[in-house]
């Protein structure tokens, strides 16, 4: 965490927060790409989704209760 040597103004703090959120969005994009690649390549995830698909086929189409 950044050590604050002087009291930041509200505007400076807001800029820091926005910069943090922008960095966070960059991380999210990288993470999204990794998630998609892992979905395609990770045998445990492939197996889990295959099992789920089979269960869904056996169960049939869910009924929506609104």
């Amino acid at each position: 965490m950044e050590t604050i040597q002087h009291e930041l103004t509200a505007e400076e703090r807001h800029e820091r927060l926005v910069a943090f959120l922008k960095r966070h969005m960059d991380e999210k994009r990288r993470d999204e790409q990794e998630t998609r690649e892992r979905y395609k390549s990770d045998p445990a995830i492939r197996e889990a989704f295959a099992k789920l698909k089979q269960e869904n086929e056996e169960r049939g189409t869910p009924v929506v209760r609104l």
Partner: protein
Amino acid sequence: MKKEEPPLLGYNYIFIGGVDSVYGFITNNNNSYEVKFKPSPYALGDDFAFGEHIYELVLKVVDSPTDKNPPFDALTAPTVAAIIKDFYDRSSLTITIYICDTSDRREMARWYKFNRWYDHFNANNYFRADQAVLDEKDGVLYHCAFIIKANNPNKMAVITAFNRLMDGYNVAK
């Protein structure tokens, strides 16, 4: 006579596990979703005493037959809500952070979705706070929220840390 099955309130989901506590579900339209709880111990500042309980909620379509954003699906929200509830059942001290993805400028649609998920919770059992942060230069509105169990003994510390974060005090570097 065959007994009629009761209507279902959501899709089947599966807990896959791993570091990010991954869950998966598949919709009627064959869209595959991953819901994960990514450990984010420093999200509320590195001096926050309960960082081990902080997770960022991430929902992603990992496979879609059309490669487009899936259309509205009434069963997705209750499914996500059920998954979140399942995760809280594993640890009642969980602090879930949600920050809307703004990368494709569909943050408002995601925020509405998040609100639909939350609507499926029993509101009495959970406490939520949120705040929007405007980046005036880029014209982007960041929606940020956290959810905890209403009886979380660290509730006041979480609220204080979240408010300080939103005020730009304990922003992680």
